[in-house]
């Protein structure tokens, strides 16, 4: 029983950064922009998040620093891909390369330092219920926030007029423009939201997951978040399932290593990455009769005036 609880808890912790980052990217992509720089925005968010928390002693300030850092990074992307109509794939890659370098510079002073990780909720009575108590009532603020975030995004996309307009920009920017919607402004906001989420997801790693900063600590999570958006067919509900599934794969391989399964640890560590490839193949294959991707995804828009 305790083992099951421990596994569920660690799956939640491992899934949360994926869920937050992927939620942001989902909104960005629904507006028609493919930002491949998630990994770069995340790692800068991790460095700034740790820095903010370490300097002030406040996890909240740390999370805020991560959000601001991610947003600033995404603004560089918006300037390039939206302002200058540069190829989005190349710009996203540039953002990741820049982010990895920047995070190394910013984080150099913090390597080896430790933080008190984010506090976990404790409601006497409820939290102590066996098995589900800690899972439901014993998490840190990030976990609850990630759930609220995805519900909020679902509501925004499907239940508000603004969400409808955002989706319109992603499906046909020419029509959206003809109807008088400021396509580039809407996309910029969507990119900034994606950046803020990526920054927060990055900050989660040193603030709650492991209480220290190591260069490259995002370890490809930004890229997995991108794959998750494809996995979810750009739908918030499936994104939740995907994020927890991937979190589970990550954790299971860790536990399998702990149980001394006779497989070299490196092969187990490769599992989440291999799983991503397999899932992408299976899903793309299953999707017969037209793609569910936003129709204008990744295409530049320069309004005719």
């Amino acid at each position, binding site marked *: 029983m305790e083992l099951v609880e421990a596994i569920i808890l660690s799956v939640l912790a491992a899934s949360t950064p994926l869920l937050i980052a992927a939620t942001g990217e989902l909104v960005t992509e629904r507006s028609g922009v493919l930002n491949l720089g998630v990994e770069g925005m995340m790692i800068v968010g991790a460095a700034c998040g740790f820095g903010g928390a370490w300097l002030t002693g406040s996890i909240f300030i740390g999370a805020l620093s991560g959000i601001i850092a991610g947003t600033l990074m995404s603004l560089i992307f918006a300037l390039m891909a939206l302002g200058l109509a*540069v190829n989005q794939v190349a710009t996203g890659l540039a953002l990741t*390369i820049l982010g990895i370098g920047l995070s190394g510079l910013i984080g150099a002073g913090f390597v080896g330092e430790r933080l008190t990780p984010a506090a976990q909720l404790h409601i006497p009575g409820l939290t102590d219920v066996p098995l589900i108590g800690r899972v439901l009532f014993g998490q840190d603020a990030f976990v609850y926030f990630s759930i609220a975030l995805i519900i909020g995004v679902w509501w925004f996309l499907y239940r508000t007029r603004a969400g409808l307009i955002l989706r319109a920009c992603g499906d046909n920017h020419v029509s959206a423009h003809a109807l008088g919607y400021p396509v580039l402004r809407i996309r910029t906001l969507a990119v900034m939201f994606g950046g803020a989420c990526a920054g927060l997801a990055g900050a989660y790693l040193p603030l709650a997951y492991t209480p220290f900063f190591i260069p490259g600590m995002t370890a490809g999570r930004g*890229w997995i978040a991108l*794959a998750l958006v494809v996995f979810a067919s750009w739908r918030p509900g499936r994104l939740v399932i995907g994020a927890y599934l991937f979190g589970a794969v990550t954790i299971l391989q860790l536990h399998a290593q702990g149980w001394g399964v006779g497989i070299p640890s490196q092969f187990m560590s490769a599992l989440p990455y291999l799983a991503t490839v397999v899932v*992408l193949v299976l899903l793309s294959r299953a999707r017969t009769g037209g793609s569910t991707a936003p129709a204008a995804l990744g295409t530049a828009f320069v309004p005719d005036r």
Partner: protein
Amino acid sequence: MQLVLEKRTERSNTIALVSPLIAIGLTIVTMTILFAILGKNPLLALHAYFIAPLTDGYSLQEIAVKATPLVMIAIGLALCYLANAWNIGAEGQFLIGAVAGSWIAVKTQGTDAGAWVLPAMLVLAAAAGALYALIPAICKVKFGASEILTSLMLVYVADLLLDYLVRGPWRDPNGFNFPTTAEFDPVATVPLLIEGGRLHLGSIIALLVVAAAAILLGRTIKGFEIRVVGAAPRAARFGGFNANQLVILTFAVSGALAGLAGIIEVAGPVGHLQPGISPGYGFTAIIVAFLGRLNPLGILIAGLFLALTFIGGEQAQIAMKIPLDVTKVFQGILLFYVLACDSLILYRFKLVLANRQVTRGAG
């Protein structure tokens, strides 16, 4: 008042020529500011980065050595990108090539294997790199899976495989438990061009690759197909070109080149297989490909320039304690400026004042 983009009626050839230079200029200005923020004397730092490595023979050779893998990988990537196939996983193909070639080196270690060893290593590495690159290519063509994500995921897998091999079955028994294979035998080593120097045969191979790519793209039907499929997919369909086949072909070629670069690096400057054989060559090569305008000769020049930043970065770290990460920041910023300047080939800025419009040509 607002600055907006406007499509040019025809592409600007002037900007196409000078845009990499403008980009490098802007990058240097940005770096000057960054050095000042880091509290380093910008002039000294720029000197350490860009001038000092050019002043002694050893560094010059080292630049050529570093440029070798960059140019080889970037040539392959350029073919992919021209055909609108996004191979981001060259780093993984590089590592798999290194692993596959090393297999022969490790298995023949201490035997009296003859001169066939090195050629066999090169061939096997290229084949392995090509096969590894075919995974994302086939996933894309057969199933429509994003090659960007699959090729990138395979980088992590290749990295872990290499890590497993040098910590497990291939570890040097006399290596004090360090995760490395034993030093390769002389027959499994890429020969040096100058006795006691650093320059090795790989640089010659890289030059041959550049020449071959220039001929392929400029003088053959295949090269023409690649460029048309990327630039005008609709026209290519009417022309009866098979875009899927070109995705497979360009991925295989770029994988082979990355794999070849991998084994040349391991059997050349490094001399044994170990983790961390690549300071991100596969990713830096993406910058090289774009800075070189996806043109073989341009890539050669761009590769030498980025190699200079690697060497300059090391010298700046030793001489002025400037962190190595500055090199990565530099490379990222450079790619941004290159892409931004390229945008001006097709577009120009226009200043929109309330109602009147004032056109301002951008260079």
